[in-house]
Every structure is written in structure tokens, then in C-alpha cells.
């Protein structure tokens, strides 16, 4: 455990993996769209953590940092659109249960 916390690469990757699995499980197990949405955000953040960790490991590579920033921006947009969709769906159908909105049709 000690070397995990010592600032080496493995620790960050482990956290990223953990975050990703938690996110995936949330998406798979929860049926509320909002929760699934949060799971997806977790998975994105897992990727972000991994990116930053590898960037630092490679000696301060700028690419990783830039990509991280871009993902944050895209995720923000995505969140806005996604939340709007969820609200719209709730208005139309009165539910945000993903399994009960299996059809795109009205």
C-alpha cells in the first residue's frame, strides 16, 4: 500500500481504474438516467486522472494536459445537453427510467 501512496504511477492508474469501474457499475446497475449520467461523468474523470498521471510520468508532456482540458470542456457541454435531454424526457414521459424509455418514438 505504501508505494501506492508514494506518488508513483501505479497509484494514479489504480485510482483511475477504480473510478472507471465505479462509473461503469453505476451505468450498468442503476436505471435512473440521472445516475447513469453521473456514472458516465465518473468514467470520463477516470480517463482524465489517467491522462494527467501519464503526462506527468512522461516528464510533463503537454499533450496529456491539453487533452484533459479538452475533455473537461466537452464533458461540460455534454452535461448541459444531456441534462436538458433528461429534463425534456421527464416532462414528456414523467419518468427517467432508462428501461422504460427504450424506444425513440413517441
Amino acid at each position, binding site marked *: 500500500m505504501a508505494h501506492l501512496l508514494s506518488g508513483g504511477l501505479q497509484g494514479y492508474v489504480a485510482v483511475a481504474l477504480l473510478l472507471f469501474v465505479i462509473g*461503469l457499475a453505476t*451505468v*450498468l446497475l442503476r*436505471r435512473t438516467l440521472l445516475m*447513469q449520467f453521473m456514472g458516465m461523468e465518473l468514467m470520463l474523470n477516470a480517463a482524465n486522472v489517467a491522462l494527467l498521471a501519464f503526462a506527468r510520468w512522461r516528464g510533463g508532456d503537454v499533450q496529456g494536459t491539453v487533452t484533459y482540458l479538452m475533455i473537461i470542456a466537452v464533458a461540460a457541454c455534454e452535461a448541459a445537453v444531456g441534462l436538458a435531454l433528461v429534463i425534456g424526457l421527464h416532462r414528456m414521459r414523467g419518468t427517467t427510467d*432508462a*428501461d422504460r424509455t*427504450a*424506444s425513440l418514438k413517441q
Partner: protein
Amino acid sequence: MHSAWLIPVLPLLGFLLNLLFGKRAGKAFVSAAGVGSVALAFVLSVVAFKVMLAAPGHRLEIGYGEWMGAGAFSVPLGFVIDPLSGLMMLVITGIGFLIHLYSVGYMGEDKGYGRYFAYLNLFVFFMLLLVMGSSLPLLFVGWEGVGLCSYLLIGFDYDLPDDVPAQAGLKAFLYNRVGDLGVLMGMLALFAAFGTLTIGDILVKAGHLGPQLGFGLLTFATLMFFVGCTGKSAQLPLYLWLPDAMAGPTPVSALIHAATMVTSGVYLIVRMAPLFQLTPLTMDVIAWVGAATALFAATIAIVQTDIKKVLAYSTVSQLGYMFLGLGSAGFAAGFFHVFTHAWFKALLFLGAGSVIHALHHEQDLLKMGGLWKKMPVTGWTMLIATACIIGFPGTSGFASKDEILYLASLKSPVLYWMGVAGACCTAFYMLRLFTLAFLGEPRDAHAHEHAHESPATMTVPLVVLAIGALGATAFGWPAAFGGSFRIEAFLEPSVSYGAAAAEGVVRHGGNPALMAAISTALALGFAWWGWSSYKGGLALAEARAAKWPFLHRLLANKYFVDEGVDAALVRPLRWFGNLLWKLFDVIVIDGIGVNLPAALTRVSGDFIALLQTGRVRNYVLTMGLGALLLLYVFLK
């Protein structure tokens, strides 16, 4: 003579004026534009005729540049005025003028007065193009154009509930179109053969060729032209439209369906005479079809009761004589019959129109009778025309018909006797018509009471035509009776086109006087029989019809040819069209070719769509499993 274009354009101008302003401008304007334009065209035609006579070789060629062309194919826009076309122009504009004048009285009450004169003027325009055109395509413009006018004028009363005129117009157009295809194919063959469609160039080139004995391009072309003639000039087997065409107004029947349009087939053959002389096979076909038509149509005319139908079959029969003459190498004789027939048949139709007008559109011969006293001018002029058509000695019909029969006898005695038999029928039915209409007791007292002589605009043309019918003998009188066949020499520049007459065609010998005597004597006998059969009313005729019911039914129903065509051609074609549509388009192409693949696509799509549950978690799971699989593959 560069201004020759005015001759056809004047009637065209009349057409445009009447079409655009005819409805609003009133009758005086319509009559002035309609009759005036044709009158002016007649005056100009006379001038052109005189200039032509003074020209070297009796031939005027006027060109106005190129009309259409592409690649090696070029058609000039030009007119030719020579004895043949000059004479036709005089007939068209002269008789045309008289009939326009007559129409002022006859159609005076009609609501479509402006439309009527517009169509009639358009017809004169196309007919003039037909005879004046220097190239076959230009001739064809007129050829189809007169068919269009015929269609429009036959169906002039388009809104009648019984639909008869519209149907007759359609029939006329389609039968004519069959013939037009013949002309079209003939033109294609001639272009392939000569590389030009200018009539003069073709004839000059043809003049250097020998007779075409096999079935080559030229024989094909001339045969196809003759097919065109059977359509336009109502010969077997395409004659069926002409009797129905009588649904049109009577002056139209006189102008288009007796005097001018139907003779354009004869004109075409005379125009291309050097070519036809090269193809003996075609000449034989023409002669035999002509003779058969002359006899066949004359037998039908015997039992018709509609005065115009009798005259229509009579026209078909007379046209048969013309072709018999042409086929016997008597180009001048055949054309002379066109000329004389134009006078007396127009006169017969206008006379019949006068009777119909007087009886308030009663056309049934069986309801006429005793009109001689009431309508003296009509009666006398009709008598003159009847004498002409039965070939009474001294009349123009005698001169032209017996010349044809004489030439036919040189070709084959069978042709001669067919012609004589037709002449006997002609004499019988014409006297029957005259007797039923003018002599005896009135059979419909009411109609007879109201009958009256027609107004001057109608009787003046009758008298002029009667004078023309008698005076036409000035152009030709059989040499056997002390005359000379002047028209032959007159037409010579057009017919031979500079080349020597084809060899091997017998043009002399035999005994013309005897031939004429036989046919005339027999015809007069049948004329007497016709008169005596009907002078006492209908009893004798009815007894005969009862005695031979089968023959009477056969003739009265015109040998059931219309019904035969319907059953053998029209119905099968429609059936076949339906079959093609339902079988090919709907079942084979659309069903198997188009909708079946579409259905297969849909079914397979539906099958694969089973995987698409629409549940996001399923998709994510699949995605996750897929990612694991990839990880395994890459990291293995």
C-alpha cells in the same frame, strides 16, 4: 416570284386572325378574314400560274434558305410551282374560295363560326404547303397538317352528347397516321438511297437508274408512299375513316373529304412519278388496290341511306379509279380525274349540303323526295354533277373515267372489267340518290313543307362549280372522240421530269372507242335501272332487300369491316397493353425486381433489430464486454 410565300401565308394569317379575335370580333370580321384571305391567295395563285407558264421549262423554284438539318441531312425551305402544283394550287384556292363562300351561308347560325373559319383557313395553308413544298419533309408538313385540320373539323361539334364527331375525328386521325408512317418510312428509305430529300434532286438522280425489279430500297420506298396514299386517300384497307368523317360540317366534307385533301395521295404519286415508274411491283399494287377499292366502295354505296354516306363511299370509289389510272401508268389520266372529280364531287356535296340545310339537318334519303320543284337551282346543279360522275357522254367524268378504263384495259382486262362493274354501281347509286332526294312524292310532309331554296352565298358556288364541272373537258377529251388529251402534254414537265418515259409501259393500242362505248352503255343501263327502281318510292327496294336479306345486311353493314378491325386489332392491342402493364411493370419488374429485394431487406432488418432492445444498460454491457475482449486480444 420570290413573294410566292404569300400564297400559303395569307390563309395562315386568316387562321391567326380568326383564332385570336374570332370570338369577339363578330361575323363580318370572321367572314372577311376567312373568305378574303383565300380569295387573295387565289388571285396570287393565278398570277403565279401565269408566271410559271411564261418561265422556261414551266418551272419556278423559290428557295428561302435551310429549314432543318443536321450533319449530312439538310432540308431547304422552298417552293416549286410547275404545271402539277400550279393546277393543284388553283383547285385548292379556287374551289376552296367557293366553299368558304358557301360556308358563310351554311354555318351562319353556328356558335363556333370563328373557330370554323380558323380551321378551314389553316387547312388551306397546309394543303398549299403540301403541293408547293420543294422537298418531301415540307410536303409531309402539309400532309400531316391537313390530317390535323381534318381531325379538328370532323370533330367540330365536339360537345355533342353522342360523341360521334369526336370519335370520327379520332378515327380519321389515326387511320391517316398509319398512312403517314408509310410516308415517313418512305422518306427514310429515300434519304438512305439518295442522300437528299429534295424532290427535284431525287427525281433527277432517279432518272439515271434502270427499273428496279427486285425488292430494294426504292420498291420499299414507293410501296410505303402508297401506304401513305391508302391512308390519306382512303383506299383499301385504310378507307374506313372517310365515311365516318361525314360527321363534320358538309362544306368540310366537300372541301377536305372530296375535292382536295383526299386527292393528295394522287398528287404525291404523280409528283414522284419517275420514281414510281422504276418500280413495276408498286405500280401493280397501286392498280389492283385502286380497282378493288373502286368496286368495293361502290357496292356499299348502293344501300346507304344517309345522303352524305352515299357520297362518301362514292368518293372512296372514285379515288380508287384515280389510283387505277396511276397504276396503269396513266399519271395524267389519274390526275385529270382528280381535277374533274374535284368539281363535280364538291358540287355533289354542296348540293347535298343545300338539301340538308333546307330540311333542317335531315340527312336521311328515305325522308326526302319531291324537292325538285322547291329547290330548282340545287336540283339542276345536282343533276349536272350526277351526269358527270356516272360518265354521261359529253361530260368531264366521261372524259376522265374512260381514259382511265382504257389505260387499265391495256394493263389487264380484269382491271378493266372491275372498273366497269364499279361504274355500273356508281350509275345505279347516283340515280338512286337523285331520285330519292328530288323526284317522286315527299315522304316527310313536315320537312318538305319547310324546305326552301338556299341563300345566294350557297347557290352561287353551286352554279360556278357546275360550270366548272362541265367546262373541265377543255383540259382533256379522249382522242378517240375527236379531242386531244391536253392535260398530258401540260403535265409532261412534272411527270417525266426531263427523263424519257420508262420503257415497257404500253400507252397505245387496243380500241379506246370500243372500251368507252361498252362501259358507257352499261353505266347508262344501270342508271336507268336505278331511276326506275326508286321513281315509285321505296316499295321495290324493300322487296329486293327482303328477297336477299344476307346480301342486304352485308352491304348495309359495310361488310362488317369496322367490327373486324375492332376485334382483330383494337381490342387485342388494349389487351396486350394491359398485359404488359400488369404483368411486366406491376409483377415482374416492380414485384420481383424492386419490391421483393425491398421486402427482403426489411425482413433481415427486422431480424437484426431484435438485438436492438433500446435499453441503454444492455448496450453498455455489450460495450464493456467488447472492451474486455479487445483488451484480452491486445494484451495476450
